[in-house]
């Protein structure tokens, strides 16, 4: 049975909050890992796994599933939290993140048999090419499954991303949607200072894509973008989702120093309290 998807904004808000809480808990327990991007993309993950992607957590390799590739492996904690929330494995397992023998590797590793994981990822600039391959295979077999790939914005500095972008448009892969987590930050600071990406939408359009922009924290903005991507007949679609790194914890929002940091246990207590306090994403 395909997972029941919802467009109920309140439900989505609660799910996003639960995912953020899991992220904070698992990172505090691990003592290391990437908090900023994991919190910042939690609403995108919620949209994907609870409103957009056809999938079956109790049968991860169901042939009818839509495919999801996380190209930025470092935000694995939010992927794991989402998979657990959807029922791929028990939430208790999230506390094994980054520990010896865990299926929840620091960056996703496919040899650890985690259900729901299609690809190992960590070294940047590969996920989109793999997604192109999946989309091509589906077209060859005349199947209507869709392929979704989440890329970071800093990742777009990898040249291979643009090889993939060129090829997806060349093959008219309208079954492919890429989401860019556009938080405008990377390890060394602002993306525009490190290596400017703008005008980003125009770049994708010049490469032959349908380029859409949306607020990556507002389901009322995210959902129509995914719908529009699904309707497109000739081109692959990119959704440039504007996000805030660390979203949900006011004291760390937009602070690039939280790219690769985990909260201490004391910080985690405060962060969890803050998340409990208000449901994000409904009133924006």
């Amino acid at each position, binding site marked *: 049975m395909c997972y029941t998807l919802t467009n109920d904004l309140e439900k989505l808000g609660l799910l996003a909050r639960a995912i953020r809480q899991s992220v904070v808990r698992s990172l505090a327990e691990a003592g290391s890992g990437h908090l900023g991007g994991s919190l910042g993309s939690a609403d995108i993950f919620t949209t994907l796994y609870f409103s957009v992607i056809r999938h079956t957590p109790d049968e991860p390799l169901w042939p009818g599933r839509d495919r999801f590739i996380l190209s930025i492996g470092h935000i694995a904690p939010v992927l794991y939290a989402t998979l657990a929330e959807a029922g791929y494995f028990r939430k208790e397992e999230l506390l094994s993140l980054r520990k010896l023998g865990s299926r929840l590797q620091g960056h996703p590793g496919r040899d650890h048999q985690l259900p729901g994981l299609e*690809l*190992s990822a960590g070294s940047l600039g590969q996920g*989109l*090419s793999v997604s192109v*391959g999946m989309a*091509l295979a589906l077209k*060859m077999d005349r199947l209507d499954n869709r392929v979704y790939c989440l890329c970071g914005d800093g990742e777009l500095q990898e040249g*291979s991303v643009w*090889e993939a972008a060129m090829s997806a448009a060349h093959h008219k892969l309208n079954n492919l949607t890429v989401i860019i987590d556009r938080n405008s930050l990377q390890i060394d600071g602002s993306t525009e200072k490190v290596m400017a990406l703008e005008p980003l939408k125009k770049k994708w359009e010049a490469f032959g894509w349908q380029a859409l922009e949306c607020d990556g924290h507002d389901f009322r903005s995210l959902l129509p973008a995914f719908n529009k991507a699904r309707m497109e007949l000739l081109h692959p679609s990119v959704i440039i989702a504007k996000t805030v790194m660390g979203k949900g914890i006011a004291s760390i929002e937009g602070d690039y120093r939280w790219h690769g940091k985990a909260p201490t246990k004391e910080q985690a207590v405060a962060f969890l309290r803050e998340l409990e306090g208000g449901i994000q994403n409904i009133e924006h």
Partner: protein
Amino acid sequence: MKEYTNSGSKDTRSGFGEAMHELGKTNPDVVALCADLTPSMKLDAFARDFPDRFIEVGIAEANMICIAAGLTIGGKIPFTGTFANFSTARVYDQIRQSVAYSNKNVKICASHAGITLGEDGATHQNMEDLGMMKMLQNMTVINPCDFNQTKAATLAIAKYVGPVYLRFGRPKVPNFTPPDQQFEIGKALVLNEGTDVSIFATGHLVWKALEACRILGEEGISSEVINIHTIKPLDDEAILASVRKTGCVVTAEEHERNGGLGDSIAQLLARKYPLPVEMVAVDDSFGESGTPEELMKKFGLDTPDVIRAVKAVMARKKS
């Protein structure tokens, strides 16, 4: 010694191309990808007759490797085609993460390997590829010796599930193995039985080893010649069985000594059965322009080099 006849020299890459065309007819899951080298890779016939299963990726090898990884998720059996340098060095991280670590059923097929690429020179003459690929977990590494064997190997890897690196070459070389052979991955082939020395050869050096064996035979030296077409997994048992009989070893390959077949065999022997080893291989050097024959001579990969190595190792055995 056992007689081997050249049935007419052919390039190993054409063996690959012929097998691909056959696979196109027999296996609907086989997909070929090429990075703007379709004629060189001998993929023209496949591209012509199976256009829906031929993906031209342009000059974008990193993209090609990862697209291939993605195709496997839909149950396809992708064969990527470009030169050895662009099949390995250029895309090592893509292979490492998206193919090997992700354990995807991708067949990385590399032509123009080694020094015999010839006139194009060192930028294109990759002699580190076997080392790079054998270091990757999950990767099977195959280096067949002639046209017939390359064809058989190509057909065999389509049936095997898991990442494979298949290496072959550009020049026409003697074609001497049977046309109808069954290729067994990981199984060393004893081409000539002998008692004085074991010569383990791979790729284009197998024929040279047979030539050396014949000449040495005339001098009363009995060489065992073994074709190691699969570098990984190495056929430990066949190698150990031979050296227990002969007591000394020559390895021969068109590759850097560091990281090549000789290095794999020396490791095995150091652990299990130490004895003298000489290696016919490239000695820490980039290649250069020249004809394949000239280069094999200059870089010490010719029949006389194998003979010299045999004599050297036998002298060490005696002392």
